[in-house]
């Protein structure tokens, strides 16, 4: 088992981990030859499945991966990884590799940070105390002063050793992305910064004395991790568990005619914000025949509303305000987001990171449960 690579874009990597870490601490990271997958399945709240082409964050030419199963599965505390990556900002050289220390597996991040220094950092105010004791008198000290004092490049090596857990292939076999029914509506979300600030504002207005719910931590050995179900009974239990906390719920709805509506309602207030002229992207014809496509609820909705008026064809979900805010933190990577609405059941977000034309596309999929009223 071997993994070693230079980081290509530590800033993107760092922003990505920062956004992921808001959803949960424990991240399943799957290293494959072509893609790196990040998956976070918290006990409650939104789960995310991300697939990032190697070249987006790592340097293709130095990427080395060896494993019997053609993939390495590790579990890592994503916020720790994120914090460690901060050391790599602006570094001339940053390498990430899999290693071991006293039988404990580690991800070791080695960074060479260079910085131009003006040289002598002596400060005018200090004329070095009273020498250096009896053995080293003050005449000797300046002679021992290390190195030159001119302007030069200061180089510092930083090593961050991040503890991880190696997961056997069998441990992750049972993990798969949730299945959910075909969406009634899919729509490209407006600017996430704007959406987030409005959502946060609404949530804050509706917040009463709710106690802060901690983002769920996925218990490393929890059996639940292997039997993730989505929709149906699973969704109901999750919804029950979540609705016990008093965090406000946002109502998000959209139709196939470019409208998105964000609303919140409490005993005291009702607010709504509506976006129009958004894009309902066409589906990829390569994936299914025209006939199949015509049967999809979203395409039916697209045709219907034109004749029946705009009050029809809306799909609505109720989502946790705080959780939604954490999901939207992905906005820092300025992605394109397609939201798929399964009425009263779920919201699935496909988040595409900006990429060069010749590169493969990075995609993060967020599965958000809808709460029952």
């Amino acid at each position, binding site marked *: 088992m071997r993994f070693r690579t230079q980081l290509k874009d530590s800033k993107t990597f760092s922003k990505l981990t920062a956004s992921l870490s808001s959803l949960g601490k424990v991240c399943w990271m799957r290293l494959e030859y072509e893609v790196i997958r990040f998956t976070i399945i918290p006990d409650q709240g939104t789960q995310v499945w991300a697939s990032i082409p190697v070249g987006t964050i790592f340097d293709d030419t130095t990427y080395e991966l060896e494993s019997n199963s053609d993939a390495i599965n590790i579990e890592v505390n994503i916020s720790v990884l994120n914090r460690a990556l901060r050391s790599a900002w602006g570094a001339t050289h940053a390498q990430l590799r899999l290693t071991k220390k006293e039988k404990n*597996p580690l991800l070791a991040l080695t960074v060479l940070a260079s910085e131009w220094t003006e040289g002598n950092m*002596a400060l005018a*105010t200090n004329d*070095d105390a009273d020498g250096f004791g009896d053995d080293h008198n003050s005449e000797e000290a300046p002679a021992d002063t290390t190195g030159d004092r001119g302007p030069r490049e200061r*180089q510092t090596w*930083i090593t961050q*050793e991040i503890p991880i857990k190696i997961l056997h292939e069998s441990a992750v076999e049972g993990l798969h992305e949730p299945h959910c029914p075909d969406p009634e509506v899919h729509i490209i979300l407006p600017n996430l910064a704007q959406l987030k600030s409005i959502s946060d504002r609404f949530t804050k207005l509706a917040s009463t004395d709710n106690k802060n719910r901690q983002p769920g931590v996925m218990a490393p050995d929890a059996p639940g991790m292997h039997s993730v179900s989505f929709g149906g009974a699973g969704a109901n239990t999750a919804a029950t568990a979540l609705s016990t906390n008093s965090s406000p719920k946002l109502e998000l709805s959209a139709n196939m005619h470019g409208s998105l509506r964000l609303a919140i309602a409490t005993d005291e207030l009702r607010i709504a914000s509506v976006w129009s002229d958004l894009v309902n992207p066409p589906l990829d014809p390569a994936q299914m025949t025209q006939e199949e496509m015509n049967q999809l609820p979203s395409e039916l909705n697209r045709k219907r509303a034109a004749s029946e008026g705009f009050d029809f064809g809306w799909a609505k979900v109720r989502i946790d305000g705080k959780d939604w805010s954490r999901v939207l933190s992905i906005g820092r990577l300025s992605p394109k987001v397609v939201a798929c609405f399964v009425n009263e059941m779920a919201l699935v977000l496909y988040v595409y990171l900006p990429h060069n034309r010749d590169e493969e596309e990075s995609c993060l999929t967020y599965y958000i449960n809808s709460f029952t009223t």
Partner: protein
Amino acid sequence: MTSLSLSLGPPALVRLHDALICLSKFSETVAIEAEPDLLRLSALNSTKTGFASFAFEKGVFFEAYSFNSSINGRSGSVSLERFFCQIYNKALLSIFRGRIDRNKDTAVERCDMELHEDLQQTECRLTVKMICGLGVIKSYKLTYEPAAVQHAVFDKSKATSMWTADPRFLKQLIEHFSLSAEQLDMYSDSGRAVFTSFTTRITDGKEVLKHPVHTSVAADKRDFQEYLVEENMHVAINLKDFKAVVAHAETANATVTARYTRPCKPLQLEYRFEGVNAEFTVMTRGQADSEEVPTSTRGTIPRQTPAPIPISAIRSRDTRPSVTPSTQMPPPPPRSRSIRPLNGSSTQENLSHQKPSADRPVASGLSMEFDSLFVPADDDRQWDEMNEEEEEEEEEEPQDILGWDASGTQDAFGASIRDTEPSFSKQDGSRAEEADDEMGLPPTQRLSQVRQYGLFD
């Protein structure tokens, strides 16, 4: 009667506030120590592993400074021209907070502090007056309490390793460490200064992900102004203390000098600026040299709070608390009313026993080196973590408690409670011993009940 009065200009006021903030990271209380030429503020942390001290020089830092002490009559020592007390740091901080704004009409122009201590008076008050613009005067009266001021002992002349560096550079190093890191290990490795942060936490084998991150930062020696450190010798200190020092040094714009000898011996960080001498003495961990740290130390010293010892003894060699003699009773402390009854003897007796004080240093068992000042304190829990230590460089249980020099010459507090030490009884004769026995424990019977035995008839 003791009196202290001083005046501070606005820049000094800011400096004082910065120092108080730094001290607040060590302890809730700040010890104030006045001498004719300087004022010292210090703080000792609760585990007695870190001691921070700021000495403000009379001529440079203050606009005016005067200190008079007239308790010479009671003391047997010449070096007694000091005054100690301690104060709750939050109280001081709240007074000095936000007094910096020069744009306001009512900005502080001068700060006067006064303290008069009279044994005849019951009140202990420190008066702070902020003379502000437009004739506004804000006065504060703070309660202080008498205290046994203790200093960490550090002999600079014996330091074998030292480095000097810009605080901004040190801050850059610190920024790589995880926020939850607790310890900082430093060593020199072939031309590089390596700083490693780690956390000594008990971790279950299953909770691998909760293991702390190890971060090591290797900087070029040339980034230090001076770097004279023994190769490959690891010493570890509390990262929080280090951060506190660097943060303050940065505000003061003063280069920091670190001096140390070996692991499990104290390390001192020092810097000077504008008439202020800041010294931080912290205990180090690491693999101790067995020859230098007698393992017997722990066994022979009874569990007790290290008792302060007289300044005269410090000047020689020893500060081992357990052998502190009390051939001499301490002088009455500034406010010893609450303490005195424990002696079981009158004040007159106290005073009369002060005479033989000159003998004290001789009588004490001066057997240990400076280095062995580090004895366990009474709090047993602080050892637990170390026992669990899984760090490779910490196989041996380090002695990480600072020893104390009670430079407050006659420290009334510690000694007057322990007045049953042998030397005292010898001097005082059996009568005193009996008195001690009688009064050492609270009575459990009424006198009337025991009268029949004839002891008190």
